[in-house]
């Protein structure tokens, strides 16, 4: 795409201006610190449940889940189901006790529960780590979406969205964004559902498309094919430039390429290596040279512009072939031209796509282990995300906290019914998105690309619907980013400035601190966002969830339900679990980017270790819990003396009137504004 997509641009401008406008409108009624942090605890159930859902449905949910289901099929269904189930877990065990305790932020809770200012510092560090990790994929989403609409450089989207949200948060705080986020939940719900209903009325329904995938498998066309002649661009970055071709595919290099040829599955050591001649049966170019790539000497074959190639003979048993392509000198990317009807590379077979334990969970050969670890990470991770937890404090009391969590589950469930439909229709209708992994034109963009098909039915209808989904995607980055920024700002202004540096700050000073912290947090997030263009959105979301699951979740569940938790126990468990999960994930990242060749070799040789490091929840969560139990039993003096009182505040019904706000400064001095 080289020109500006006008209709989507208008839709996105509308949503961005609407967000700024609402923020300014609500900002006029902000009068107290409590307004900024917890919206004066006066948010109604429908408003707050829509706001929590709006905050939760990030870029990953809006674009990433549909894209992953299109890419991997059944296995990716776990993501939306567990995002919703994670909330239920939060409702059953954590939501209302946490609310009854009454605090502004999770570090407040940590300090209050264990009577320990040191614990506040540890908790703040994790709010910042998880917060910044989770803002990076949102920023990446914003940058990628603007590439699709405006054809701008990646950083423009990051900076634009970052500035809008930072101003919004700095001016309106929690009160401003509560209203905006409730509004944006409905924007996202509308944007994911309406286009799909219109698409279905034209191209046929969900069961029909499933049936088509099931049937075409029986006839023996197990893979999607290009609907028309298609040119695909490959930038020289892993994993974008790695293409897996099933046997027998023919395509043409449009502008030439330098190519590394390998089998898709790593060959066993003792097996005879397959020769390059058997992998490219159309004949290899004469020109070749050797180059060191990621610590290994590789042979690169230089194809000229217009060279047509055919990969392995389906009857020879070589199987799929992986080509790693690099542009020839003077070109920015490799162009490959696929004829209409050719099989799309990288796509999983229909059967593997539809049935469990396909290319996602079975990639290292231990699908059950991988699936269970994913389940644990997503459920416990949801229950430990600080920007979601802090929202429960905006409820007037624990009763409304429960009712809110119930409505959040309804709202999220309704939303998550739709991404699998997008993924299924995408597989049948826009299979060319499989041809490139990662980047702005991969399966991640299915919700933006699919509606454009309708341009053939009614002029501009496709553009309009694509505009609506673009606006929904923008609502996704903006709401999640603002929620994260409020919790990051809360950590900086309330936990660090208000509680550690200057506890006697006046209302005016606190308000200024909040605004300065919002700008500092926003600018940091923008800078980080511009650095992560080459990381995968889902990988980054996975980091944030696994770290939250292994740090906050064990600390919260134990401090809510076990009286004997000692300060040392909770702190060491949280630190130990969180850092172990972080270390495992970073080691996988370093191995993938070939930064430490020895590590890459080790993980390639030990698939069990690789699964455990990539999905660390299955061992990191129990490790954190075990550390908490053992250390608590060893340090009984660290159990707060008034632990029973605190447990009573957490669990006694509010009708007994035992509860009062943990921190009440300023919240009563000024009458609460409109909402």
């Amino acid at each position, binding site marked *: 795409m080289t020109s500006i997509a006008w209709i989507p641009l208008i839709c996105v401008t509308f949503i961005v201006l609407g967000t700024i406008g609402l923020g300014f409108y609500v900002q006029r009624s902000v009068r107290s610190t409590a307004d900024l942090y917890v919206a004066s605890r006066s948010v109604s159930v429908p408003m707050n449940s829509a706001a929590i859902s709006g905050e939760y449905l990030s870029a990953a949910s809006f674009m990433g889940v549909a894209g992953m289901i299109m890419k991997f099929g*059944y296995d990716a*269904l*776990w993501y939306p*189901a567990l995002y*919703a*189930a994670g909330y*239920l*877990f939060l*409702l*059953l*065990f954590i939501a*209302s006790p946490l609310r009854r305790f*009454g605090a502004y932020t999770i570090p407040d809770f940590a*300090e*209050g529960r264990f*009577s320990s200012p040191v614990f506040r510092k540890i908790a703040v560090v994790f709010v910042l780590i998880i917060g910044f990790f989770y803002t990076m994929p949102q920023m990446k989403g914003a940058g990628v979406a603007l590439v699709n609409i405006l054809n701008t450089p990646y950083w423009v989207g990051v900076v634009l969205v970052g500035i809008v949200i930072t101003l919004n948060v700095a001016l309106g705080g929690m009160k401003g964004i509560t209203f905006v986020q409730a509004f944006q939940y409905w924007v996202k719900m509308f944007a994911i559902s309406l286009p799909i209903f219109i698409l279905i009325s034209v191209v046929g329904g969900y*069961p*029909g*498309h*499933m*049936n*088509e995938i*099931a049937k075409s498998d029986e006839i023996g066309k197990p893979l999607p094919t290009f609907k028309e002649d298609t040119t695909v661009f490959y930038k020289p970055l892993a994993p974008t430039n790695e293409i897996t071709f099933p046997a027998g595919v023919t395509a043409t290099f449009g502008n030439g390429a330098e190519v590394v040829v390998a089998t898709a599955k790593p060959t066993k050591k003792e097996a005879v290596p397959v020769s390059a001649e058997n992998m490219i049966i159309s004949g290899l170019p004469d020109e070749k040279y050797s180059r060191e790539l990621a610590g290994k000497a590789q042979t690169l074959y230089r194809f000229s512009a217009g060279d047509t190639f055919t990969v392995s003979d389906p009857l020879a048993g070589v199987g799929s072939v992986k080509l790693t392509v690099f542009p020839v000198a003077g070109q920015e990317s490799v162009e490959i031209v696929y004829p209409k009807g050719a099989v799309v590379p990288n796509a999983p077979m229909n059967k593997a796509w*539809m*049935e*469990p*334990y396909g290319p996602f969970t079975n990639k290292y050969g231990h699908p*059950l282990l991988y*699936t269970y670890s994913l*389940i644990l990470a997503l*459920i416990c991770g949801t229950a430990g995300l600080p920007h979601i937890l802090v929202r429960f404090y905006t409820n007037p009391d624990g*009763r409304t906290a*429960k009712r809110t*969590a*119930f409505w959040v*589950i*309804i709202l999220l*469930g309704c939303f*998550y*019914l739709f991404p699998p439909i997008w993924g299924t229709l995408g597989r049948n209708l826009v299979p060319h998105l499989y041809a490139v992994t990662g980047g702005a034109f991969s399966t991640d963009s299915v919700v933006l690309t699919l509606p454009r098909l309708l341009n053939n039915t009614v002029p501009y209808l496709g553009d309009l619907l694509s505009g609506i989904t673009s606006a929904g995607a923008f609502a996704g980055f903006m709401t999640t980013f603002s929620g994260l920024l409020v919790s990051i700002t809360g950590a900086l202004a309330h936990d660090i400035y208000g509680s550690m540096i200057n506890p006697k700050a006046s209302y005016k000073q606190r308000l200024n601190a909040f605004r300065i912290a919002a700008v500092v947090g926003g600018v940091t997030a923008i800078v980080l966002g511009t650095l992560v263009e080459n990381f995968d959105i889902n990988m980054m979301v996975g980091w944030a969830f696994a770290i939250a699951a292994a740090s906050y979740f064990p600390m919260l569940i134990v401090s809510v*339900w076990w*009286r004997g938790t000692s300060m040392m126990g909770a702190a060491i468990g949280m630190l130990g679990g969180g850092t172990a999960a972080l270390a495992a994930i970073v080691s996988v990242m370093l191995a993938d980017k070939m930064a430490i060749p020895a590590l890459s070799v080790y993980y390639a040789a030990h698939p069990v270790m690789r699964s455990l490091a990539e999905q660390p929840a299955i061992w990191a969560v129990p490790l954190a819990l075990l550390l908490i139990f053992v250390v608590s039993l060893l340090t009984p003096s660290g159990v707060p003396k*008034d632990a*029973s*009182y605190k*447990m*009573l*505040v957490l*669990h*006694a*019904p*509010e*009708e*007994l*009137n*035992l*509860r*009062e*706000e*943990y921190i009440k400064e300023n919240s009563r001095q000024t009458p609460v504004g409109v909402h």
Partner: protein
Amino acid sequence: MAKIETALRPMGSTQEDQKASLLTGIHSEQYLKLIMYRQLRLSLALFGVFVIILAGLPLVNYYLPMVATIRIYGFTLSWLVLGVLFYPVTWAVAYIYVKRSLELEHRIAQEVAQSKGR
């Protein structure tokens, strides 16, 4: 932390004495264990539904693929369960939990009120 203890004092002033005597009762260890146990039992019972689904579905998919891949309107059974039917189950469990737990809290409050009357 001092703030917590002050926060724990009941609000209101007319029945200060009555409430003080009530507080010594409900601050007892036994009472705390009882309300925690009753709330935890409710949560665990409902969470059991999810343990069965989340622990069981991967096992069914793995060991009984012929059940998991039964076709219903083009969907596999397993897809229908995880991609569609799972959400109404979460709604039902959440509804039952909120209803039961609010009832439970009301009951606990009434019991305390009764013991105070004695």
